[in-house]
């Protein structure tokens, strides 16, 4: 346990679990053991109620009517934007763009900032640890602009090769796009250090925060990144809503990505002028109910306390790593010094899908497959892995259920 953890009051996990209706469900006749939080997190009652309340009592479009409900919805929508800004310590709510999710945020940066900035010969630097959503948008951009995509290699432990990183930062590098917390390996990357090196060279930086936002404290001013993208549904909020943080000076200079209502200043049949950010990047009616749900989710996380969440998840991951690691014939993929919330493993001689099927029969939900990170799988020479991923509502008893399930896998496929 770290010093921070011992100074933090312990979470009352059993009581917190009662806030999540789905955790009382049974699957295949057994209590649900939900260890697939990196894919999506479960929702507390307050989030479900916020979405439901919006549709039951508050539904109206925003930024349009002068009527009561529309005004209330507009105010509530903008309050969530301010809450998001506080959640990641952005300097201003104007730096918070609502998107559909992390993927859309990254594509927005690629197609707006990237397409208007990059030219042939420029380099985009990513890493070998990225989710497909932080690879493919840059490949598309490279094909459009003539830029090239390069990648920082991974060590055997599943850490970024930082010496190679320094060599790969060149006078041609225009963008560094890096994952904060790897969904496939659980590695926490030293993004703050990487960003400082990149910024010394005037390189624009983007952090994929899809996995870090639910598990680590995020402070975009301290990270000093230019863009930070995350998803609502992984941070206990609804699907269909995400956030792109953008440094104000960059957002102000960026052209619109999609055109439509709400993103304009004036429109004539000949030409239009654009609204200021963030509205410039929010064409059309946004997912208002989902924004309300996201606001409730962030409020919930803050009430639980991110320090307590971090400390408990660290303890849980250490326990799971020890218990799973001591099983015969099990190999943990990703053994970085700094890790959070993710335990990827393979069982010798058994395909991960079969591991997942046996665990499922025990009520234990994990993810199996390539985790949308095929380059990581190639790097470790496996077609796929089994992945248990934790949230603060998971317990030691659930880790024990995982371990029992893996033992059964070994006996079924002996």
């Amino acid at each position, binding site marked *: 346990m770290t010093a921070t953890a011992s100074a933090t009051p312990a979470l009352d996990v059993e009581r917190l679990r009662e806030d999540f209706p789905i955790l009382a469900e049974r699957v295949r006749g057994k209590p649900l053991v939900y260890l697939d939080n990196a894919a999506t997190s479960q929702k507390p009652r307050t989030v479900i109620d916020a979405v439901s309340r919006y549709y039951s009592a508050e539904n109206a479009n925003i930024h349009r009517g002068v009527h009561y409900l529309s005004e209330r919805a507009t105010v509530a929508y903008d309050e969530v934007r301010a809450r998001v800004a506080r959640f990641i310590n952005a300097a201003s709510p104007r730096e918070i763009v609502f998107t559909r999710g992390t993927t859309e945020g990254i594509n927005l940066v690629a197609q707006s900032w990237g397409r208007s900035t990059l030219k042939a010969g420029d380099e985009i630097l990513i890493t070998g640890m990225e989710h497909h959503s932080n690879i493919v948008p840059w490949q598309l951009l490279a094909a459009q602009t003539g830029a090239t995509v390069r990648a920082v290699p991974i060590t055997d432990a599943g850490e970024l090769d930082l010496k190679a990183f320094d060599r790969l930062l060149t006078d041609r590098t225009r963008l560094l796009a890096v994952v904060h917390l790897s969904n496939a390996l659980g590695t926490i990357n030293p993004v703050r250090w990487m960003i400082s090196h990149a910024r010394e060279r005037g390189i624009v930086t983007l952090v994929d925060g899809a996995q870090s936002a639910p598990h680590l404290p995020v402070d975009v001013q301290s990270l000093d990144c230019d863009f930070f993208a995350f998803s609502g549904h992984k941070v206990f909020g609804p699907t269909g809503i995400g956030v792109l943080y953008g440094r104000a000076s960059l957002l102000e200079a960026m052209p619109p990505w999609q055109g439509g209502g709400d993103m304009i200043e004036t429109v004539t049949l000949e030409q239009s002028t654009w609204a200021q950010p963030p509205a410039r990047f929010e064409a059309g009616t946004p997912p208002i109910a989902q924004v309300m749900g996201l606001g409730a989710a962030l409020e919930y996380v803050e009430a639980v306390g991110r320090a307590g969440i971090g400390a408990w998840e660290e303890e849980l991951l250490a326990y799971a790593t020890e218990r799973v690691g001591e099983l015969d014939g099990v190999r943990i993929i990703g053994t970085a010094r700094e890790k959070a919330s993710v335990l990827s493993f393979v069982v010798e001689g058994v395909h991960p899908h*079969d591991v997942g099927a046996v665990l499922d*029969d025990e009520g234990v939900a994990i993810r199996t*497959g390539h985790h949308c990170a*095929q380059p990581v799988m190639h790097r470790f020479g496996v077609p*796929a892995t089994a992945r248990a991923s934790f949230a603060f509502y998971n317990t030691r008893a659930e880790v024990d259920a995982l371990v029992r399930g893996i033992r059964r896998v070994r006996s079924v496929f002996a």
Partner: protein
Amino acid sequence: MSSLSELYQNVILEHNRSPRNYRVMDDADRKADGYNPLCGDQVTVWVRMDGDVIGDVSFRGAGCAISKASASLMTGAVKGKSREETEKLFERFHQLVTGTLPPGESETLGKLAVFSGVSAFPVRVKCASMAWHTLKAALEAGQAGGRSGGQAIGDPDGPAGRPDRAKDGAAGPPA
């Protein structure tokens, strides 16, 4: 019997451990590669025709127990069969694993009936059928103008395709 033991019947576990006809075929006259982009599973099927019937068939690949056992049992079931008979068998097999085979018809599938448990697990249908889609593509490679992903060996224009991509793949896990 639980649905899990219905899925992993002993015959399937045994074929997963010791797959039959698991080899590269040097004298094959056609082959095809199957790939499931959603889970990364991959299979190659080789065929040597003996007149109108399959004289020999083999496979190699990486996949789960269901996909490996299915490929193994498939090679045993189609040897000596014509292309038409093989396609009819695949049709009945596909009905079996999707739970749409009319009652009483499963005995016509012989050993392949051990895959009946797959129908309770819709996401595993693609595992059970990937080798069959790939075999079908290999057989079509021998047909002039066939729009297959298979490759007639010795035909430099034959496409090295991924026949399995469209069918059954949609049921896979999301990214």
